[in-house]
């Protein structure tokens, strides 16, 4: 080392202290946390096994039905149906079902965490100032960095994969909920206050309905973020399509990687279409024109 940057503080022993502290934390809290997340793990397993044991045509009908209900569009429904069948044709049905289960649970939890956090943030400028950089860090920090503590706490498996996915997928839901609420027309909110609406009534009668397009855009982004995590998450035992890609790399099998990769793309399209249609549907039911 010749750069000559002065050693102003002892970064190495700071690192050691941090590691020691975290190890102590793992020792003290690891089991409690594992117990705490047990229900989530059960839900995930149940969903995965459910999707894998159902006959393929039930899953197909379910996805197509959901798409049609949300979009009222035969074209979109046909696209989702064809892509779902393609998952089976590629021979990756079971892996795809595992990935769907992980994604659905991760997305639902991200929404359950992200939307209320966004609501809180829209109500406090101070919280927003603190939270914004944290959200930036959550999204820009290389994902592998939080795999380390999660794996240490829970051991390799589905739970750390799920948590890492959530950390990555939550920010858009938070951000766009906050933004949507802050952009609500001030006069409409004022009208609601003038008629004596409590903060809760303001939230449910004005702020959330008017912020919904933005919230749904956030939810859609959250879904895509979650999907983009599946390969990395599979490195710590999430299984599914990502694991096939990983094996393709390890065994140098181009075909395996390619097929799983295509499967991920198909899932992305399926989820994107469904999420968009759901968003539009919620919007039109709020802004009916006739």
């Amino acid at each position, binding site marked *: 080392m010749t750069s000559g940057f002065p050693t102003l503080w002892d970064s190495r022993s700071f690192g050691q202290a941090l590691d020691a502290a975290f190890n102590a934390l793992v020792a003290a809290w690891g089991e409690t946390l594992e117990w705490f997340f047990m229900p989530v793990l059960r839900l995930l397993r149940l969903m995965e096994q459910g999707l894998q044991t159902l006959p393929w045509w039930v899953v197909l009908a379910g996805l197509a039905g959901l798409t049609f209900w949300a979009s009222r569009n035969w074209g979109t429904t046909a696209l989702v149906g064809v892509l779902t069948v393609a998952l089976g044709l590629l021979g990756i049905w079971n892996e795809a079902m595992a990935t769907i289960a992980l994604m659905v649970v991760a997305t639902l939890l991200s929404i359950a965490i992200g939307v209320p956090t966004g609501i809180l943030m829209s109500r406090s400028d101070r919280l927003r100032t603190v939270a914004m950089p944290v959200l930036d860090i959550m999204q820009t920090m290389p994902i592998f960095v939080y795999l380390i503590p999660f794996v240490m706490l829970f051991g390799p498996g589905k739970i750390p994969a799920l948590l890492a996915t959530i950390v990555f997928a939550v920010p858009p839901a938070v951000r766009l909920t906050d933004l949507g609420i802050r952009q609500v027309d001030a006069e409409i909110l004022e009208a609601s206050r003038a*008629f004596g609406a409590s903060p809760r009534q303001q939230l449910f009668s*004005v702020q959330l309905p008017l912020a919904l397009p933005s919230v749904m855009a956030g939810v859609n982004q959250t879904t895509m973020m979650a999907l983009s995590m599946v390969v990395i998450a599979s490195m710590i035992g999430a299984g599914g399509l990502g694991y096939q890609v990983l094996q393709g790399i390890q065994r140098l099998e181009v075909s395996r990687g390619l097929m799983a990769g295509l499967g991920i793309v198909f899932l992305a399209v399926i989820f994107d279409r469904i999420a968009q249609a759901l968003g539009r549907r919620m919007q039109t039911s709020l802004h009916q024109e006739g």
Partner: protein
Amino acid sequence: MGDPGIRVEGISKVFGKTPAKALELVRSGMGKAELLEKTGHALGLHDINLTIGAGEIFVIMGLSGSGKSTLIRHFNRLIEPTAGRILVDGEDILRLDEPGLRNFRRRKIAMVFQRFGLLPHRNVLDNVMYGLLIDGVTRRKAEERAREQLALVGLAGFETRFPAQLSGGMQQRVGLARALATDAGILLMDEAFSALDPLIRHDMQLQLKALQAKLQKTIIFITHDLDEALLLGDHIAILKDGTVRQAGTGAEILTRPADDYVARFVHDVNRARILTCGQITDRAIRVDTPGSVDARAPIETAFAAFAQGEQAIAVVNGNGQPIGAITWQRVMQALAGR
């Protein structure tokens, strides 16, 4: 319960980080511009005192930035004052706690907004029911009441439309119906008709007058349009830079402006249409020529008779009894603004 009506006592409002300190500076003589430049605080209102009678239309008038919106938002505490008191029927509303304030807003005071402030995702009926539902009234009762109000403002049959499907005038009638639905005694209207076309606007003014004759609410009406103020207002307050320059009846303001600003403000108004014959009647004169004018009619109704060469025209009260006469000279004085 104290005196009915509303009293505004020494209301001041400074916007900024330390409004109380900034207000001290204003009290020791610092002007609005200097305050903004030196401390970054905006003086919204300064020492406003008003008495608003129960059941009257009280118009607050002023140019853009004079503090009208700031003032009207004090009556339902959408804005909190830096100093002063507001008594509604003798009760200081600034003392109300959160639940008390909510109840006050739900039952005693309602508001109509310049850009309507309707909920775009709810239909007309649901919008009109809004205040009632907020107050926990059952849906059935709220709906019944909302339908009555819609009929009152001439919008029966539009219940299931959405705000975006209606013209501006119709949207504002929905806003008015929503405000009337809670049966509040006080109605706040912040430039309620300013966003409408002139013709529709005039319709709405007449409709409001007709409704008021029936409902007898206490209405605080904001406008920057003098003709509107004179047409609607039982009393008018003229606001400039956050202070009241003059408060009185339309005739008082026209005939005895308190200062140069008010005089210039009212300079261009069509006095012949605003001042009434009764206001310029000389009670000492009796004329016996045929023909007479009603004391409540605008001066311009007498023009035709003067054009025939009459020197003085009899003025009669509502019962047809003569109360005096108006002369050429009086008419000319009134039109000249003296």
